């Protein structure tokens, strides 16, 4: 493990130079925030409130430390916050409906010897899992779309809302495809051992599509995708509003 860590740090500094140091610093803060989140939840703090606070901190670090242009960072941060709220609002009813919290029969071996009366609300944790899962994807998407759109908008003298939205979607198309790939391939990474195990437990199709862990993974991927999709119109709207405010001020 130490060798891996060493290789990572050396390569990072070689390729990214001094930028590498601030990257390591940002990663460090993110890891500390997540560890704090875990400890607070285990100590009995409310899962959803703690997750919300820690997520905001993570978004601030991820966006303001990585983006140099203040107007891009500002819009990207606002967008990610809005998307977070939307994701929580969608996830709570869907998770309640799906009852896909906690661990499944497939985890039996791992659970041996544990007291299952954990005192932590696993249904709430299921929501927190989706929110944490989406943090990186959402912050990256909003930054990428905002900076792409800002670049286009700044080089055009006049703008109608339709134009900004059209540009937003043309920038968004590529990002949506690549993020979908990332989400899908990660879904493959986590589910192939799961599907293999389910098969060896001799399950039929009916049981697979109703399986707690399978449904939880699919829902996580889909809700993250919803977050990515919604980033495009929200960013376009915020960029449009900024441009409009700026031009009306100039006229006065």
């Amino acid at each position, binding site marked *: 493990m130490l060798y891996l860590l060493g290789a990572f740090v050396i390569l990072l500094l070689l390729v990214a130079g001094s930028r590498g140091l601030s990257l390591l610093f940002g*990663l460090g803060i993110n890891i500390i925030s997540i560890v704090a989140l875990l400890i607070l939840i285990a100590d009995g703090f409310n899962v959803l409130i703690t997750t919300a606070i820690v997520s905001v901190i993570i978004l601030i670090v991820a966006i303001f430390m990585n983006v140099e242009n203040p107007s891009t960072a500002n819009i990207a941060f606002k967008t990610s916050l809005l998307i977070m709220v939307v994701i929580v609002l969608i996830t709570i009813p869907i998770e309640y409906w*799906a009852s896909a919290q906690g661990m*499944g029969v497939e985890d039996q071996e791992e659970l041996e010897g544990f007291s*299952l009366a954990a005192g932590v609300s696993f249904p709430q944790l299921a929501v927190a899992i989706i929110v944490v899962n989406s943090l*990186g994807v959402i912050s990256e998407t909003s930054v990428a779309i905002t900076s792409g759109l800002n670049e286009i908008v700044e080089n055009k003298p006049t703008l109608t809302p339709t134009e900004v939205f059209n540009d937003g979607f043309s920038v968004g198309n*590529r990002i949506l495809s690549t993020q979908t790939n990332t989400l899908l391939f990660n879904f493959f990474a986590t589910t192939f051992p*799961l599907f*293999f195990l389910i098969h060896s437990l001799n399950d039929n199709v009916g049981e697979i599509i109703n399986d707690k862990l399978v449904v939880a993974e699919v829902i996580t991927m*889909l809700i993250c995708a919803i977050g990515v999709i919604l980033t*495009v119109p929200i960013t376009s709207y915020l960029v449009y509003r900024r441009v409009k405010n700026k031009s009306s001020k100039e006229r006065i």
Partner: protein
Amino acid sequence: MNNNLSGEIMKKKYLRICIVIVIAILAVIFTEFDAFLYKDPIIKVENIKTLEKSKNTDQYKNTDTQVTQRVTGRFLNTAKRGQKISLKNTYYRSQLTDQKYRVGQQVMLTKTGKHYSINDVKRDTVLVFTIGLVMVLLFCMQFSRGKLLTSVLLNLVVYYGFMKMLINTHNSILLLMTVITALLISGIALIVILGPTSDALMAYSSTVISTTVSILLSVLLLNLSNNSGVHMELTDFGLQPYFSVFISQVIFSVLGVILDETMDISSSLIEMKKEISDVSEKTLFKSGINIGRELIGPLINILLFIVIAEHLNVVLLYLSNGNSINYTFEMTLSLGLAQLLISGIGIVLTVPITSFIASKVITRRTV
């Protein structure tokens, strides 16, 4: 004339959205009534009665309430269709592995002999609902859906084939299968996004070389340190052979991000060549590194949160069972951390490798 035309297009667009919404709603309604397709008995819960509640504190000072409920429902399928049945269910309020049932839910049962017992919640309706929600959102907006959906579908088909092969070979040639699958899905993704062009080929070779180099380097480093600190036996669900499962997971997980990175770097360099036709190989390479530098942080973040989110349940189980933070993290997150470090090495190495390949290829082009 122009107004008429755009009016026509708008009408078509709304019509398409309406059709998608109708299909989604019909699919959701269908799954609500699809019990006849299942072999296992399914009941719809009509009445819940709480029989017993006991609050207890375990040896780790976790307070949890154990509840016993009587679940009464009516069969939706099998020969007993329409008949009533009552079953007992016990759950902890934290619901780690057990389940609180509610009125209106459809529940799958298991029949052993003449005895019925509760198996699990029927979740296909919510699954279809969420898929429908994504589709409706996609169709409400001007994304080029055709490409996106084709690439997702093709990749799912390849993944299905991969799973079939794994099961047929009893997981004996996992690594080989993973490599073939990874080559296929990244190729499909690139061809669908960029088209069958030389740009796609360039991005593809960068992706393959970067992934291969970083995985080989990491495996070498892991072997040098005799896997110290990495608990291979803790891969998901304890599936064997541990090492192959771990490496396969790393490959799948990092592939999407590296694809994203190579496409970003190489397309920016292609743009640059278009603007400045006599740009030198060295300048291209340098700007490739500069662009890539900005991508490293966000891409590592994506994987960081995906990997950590996956382990939240088990980390909290360990912590609530009185384990120290150190022991918990070693048992639950060390493997994830190793995965992240290998991914990180891959993400970093992709920057010079892609910049090198792209600058070589692009400068040799005439236009």
